[in-house]
């Protein structure tokens, strides 16, 4: 800032200093005197900033205002009620929020190992042209529309992953999450009990968030100081030893931050989830079993038939989702910024 104020004055009179008595001349003013074009540019840019902030604040304020109507009626029960029928004043996001988090956690289980491995592959193993090709591919993957992932999930993955789900539930059914049984406690084995589950949606969402995570992690890893890498090699370390001793500790902030950024995107993912799941409004602990829900799928499902109050209730659900992703995103970016790899000077 100080630099630009110093150099902004377009035309400064040459200082008239009497060589005999330098103190006699008045001290030259260094204040900026912007020209006309500069002030126009500044005010236009300022205006653009204002419009951007106005749009963004309008979204937040409007959401909060409309949501407060429903939140005032529901009160605390909004967070613990599982059913969703605003017409009878009985609605809450317990089940949809639970479903959202289940899907996101499964997505993280799929995405984090893949992203970590790919980021290390790109930054440590691949060389030259191979590396830039892989980076391009990761960027390209981030641009594939979510409806395409949804199509793939519904028409290919679903049929092919059901045997795996059946197998998991047969052999790991003693873990409560992986159990699949009907209301009477009878264990189910037929394929129709495993379709449209949180497991399948989680895998697809996981694949969708891998590129985000990979690029953040790769960025962090590639900044690991070359001196420390060479020191590890010089002490006789293998490549994996070097990665464990230097790259992973250095990029820890990037790993955590990238994971959380991906988590934020996974929580907000709509269309692929909506295409795959079959919505239910109860908390379903059995992730392999048919039926789950998510906040965004709830909005996509119910917005059309809603009355004004129903819309306000959906707004409240959307607001809660937005607040969660907001907190996650800000935590992630502050972790990345505070970590050693995020710091500019080292």
């Amino acid at each position, binding site marked *: 800032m100080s630099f630009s104020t110093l150099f902004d004055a377009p035309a400064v009179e040459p200082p008239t200093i009497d060589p005999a008595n330098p103190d006699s001349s008045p001290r030259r003013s260094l204040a900026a005197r912007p020209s006309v074009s500069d002030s126009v540019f500044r005010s236009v840019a300022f205006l653009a900033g204002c419009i951007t902030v106005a749009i963004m604040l309008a979204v937040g304020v409007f959401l909060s205002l409309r949501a407060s109507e429903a939140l005032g009626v529901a009160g605390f029960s909004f967070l613990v009620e599982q059913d969703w029928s605003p017409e009878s004043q009985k609605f809450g996001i317990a089940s949809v929020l639970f479903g959202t988090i289940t899907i996101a956690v499964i997505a993280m289980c799929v995405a984090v190992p893949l992203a970590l491995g790919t980021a290390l592959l790109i930054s440590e193993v691949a060389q030259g042209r191979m590396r830039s090709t892989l980076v391009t591919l990761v960027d390209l993957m981030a641009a594939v529309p979510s409806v395409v992932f949804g*199509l793939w999930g519904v028409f290919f993955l679903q049929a092919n992953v059901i045997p795996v789900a059946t197998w998991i539930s047969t052999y790991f059914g003693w873990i409560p999450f992986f159990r699949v049984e009907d209301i009477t406690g009878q264990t189910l084995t037929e394929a129709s009990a495993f379709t449209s589950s949180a497991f399948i949606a989680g895998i697809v969402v996981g694949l969708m968030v891998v590129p985000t995570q990979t690029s953040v992690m790769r960025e962090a890893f590639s900044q690991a100081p070359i001196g420390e890498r060479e020191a590890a*090699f010089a002490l006789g370390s293998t490549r994996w030893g070097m990665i464990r001793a230097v790259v992973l500790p250095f990029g820890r902030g990037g790993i955590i931050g990238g994971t959380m950024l991906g988590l934020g995107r996974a929580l907000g993912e709509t269309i692929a989830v909506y295409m795959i799941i079959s919505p239910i409004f109860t908390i379903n602990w059995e992730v392999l079993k048919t039926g789950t829900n998510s906040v965004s799928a709830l909005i996509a499902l119910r917005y059309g038939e809603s009355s004004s109050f129903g819309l306000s209730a959906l707004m409240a659900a959307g607001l809660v989702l937005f607040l969660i992703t907001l907190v996650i995103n800000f935590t992630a970016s502050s972790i990345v910024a505070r970590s050693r790899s995020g710091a500019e000077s080292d």
Partner: protein
Amino acid sequence: MTILLEPTGTVIPELTPTAPAHTTTIPSPGGTPIGPRRRVRGARLDDRFNLLGAASAGIAVAVLLFGWFSPLSGGVGWLLVAFIAFIGFYALLVSFASDWQEVKDRVMGVLLASAGVLLFGALVFVVAFTLVRGQEALPHLNFFTQSMELAGPLDGLEVGGIVHAILGTLMQISMALAITIPLGILTALFLNEVGGKFARFVRTISDAMTALPSIVAGLFVYSAIIVLITHQRSGFAAAMAITVMMLPIVIRASDIVLRLVPGNLREAAYALGSTRWRTVWHVVLPTARPGLATAVILGTARGIGETSPVLLTSGVTAVVNWNPFEGPMISLPLQVFDFVKSPEPNMIARGFGSAAVLILLVLALFVIARLIGGKGPGQLGRRQQERVIAASALDLQRITLQGDRRVLLDASAAQDDHRPQPSASTPSAPPSDPNPKETSS
């Protein structure tokens, strides 16, 4: 690591006893010849055989398990078992010849590579799956020239098409871009070139907005514009929803690109006495142009693929709608979503066809972005460099010509007036307005 890659051992200087202290002293080779450079990377023969052997053992185990003992079935499960067996056998084979550290290194190397193969395989597979399933609908020319107006759900693929969705996508994205490009780039300029407390606030807000789930953006437009003002779904509302989604992406990407413009270019412009606006227009923007184009195109690719905000705002229709302010106007991703909701095989084929068109559109945008923005700010292609060199040669000629003329003029004036002649060594002032276009191309 880089030291290993650098060409070493070419010339080792003779060391003298007077070598300064605190420097690395390389012992003299003492007449022994320096051999050819050693290969420090690359696989030995037994590494390759280890891989091959482990792979065949893994496949064999998987076939055995699935063929004979068969509590398992399905392609995915087969791959999983084969992979786990492969890793186990590989560790065993490596451990015959090396210590524990090397076993860990090799196994982790294989795991990293397989993570990459799995991810990129999945990407290629997702895209290829859509393109292959789309082949059923794509060869029909009417798919690109007709709308679904006259096609019923049971009609064959030779009737009906998606021209209405393509037109809708183009119109919606153009409207969104008409708002996003100027607003986004100006805001990014505000963040970088004007700065101050308010700019930090703007940056925080726009960063926060990247967290906005797309469905919530759609819900906002639905209840703020459609329910309150227009009372009908329209292409304009969809464009607004896409704008709310794209604006933070474009601002963030342009912000990063503008930050990459070298500071010394700006300082040079300021040192020549240019105002801030002229610096922005003639130095910052031209330097960042490829990056800005990439930012906008990648934002466009994301905006085109957004389904959920459009789902709430644009409405579903089967006819071409030229008026963005009235009546529903469908877009490609929403059309895909709408097609595959139907159980009819022909409709699903149309859905895959539309998805293939959408993917090809995104791919084309991505390739264009790469072609434009593959280079960093300030890096020029060969032809651009030639043009810049030619332009500066012209400038030099012009400046020296003007200088010579002025010296001649001054000399003749001195002869007339007997004024003290200015020394020829002081260069005359360069023209006050150097042609600024030379940096821009």
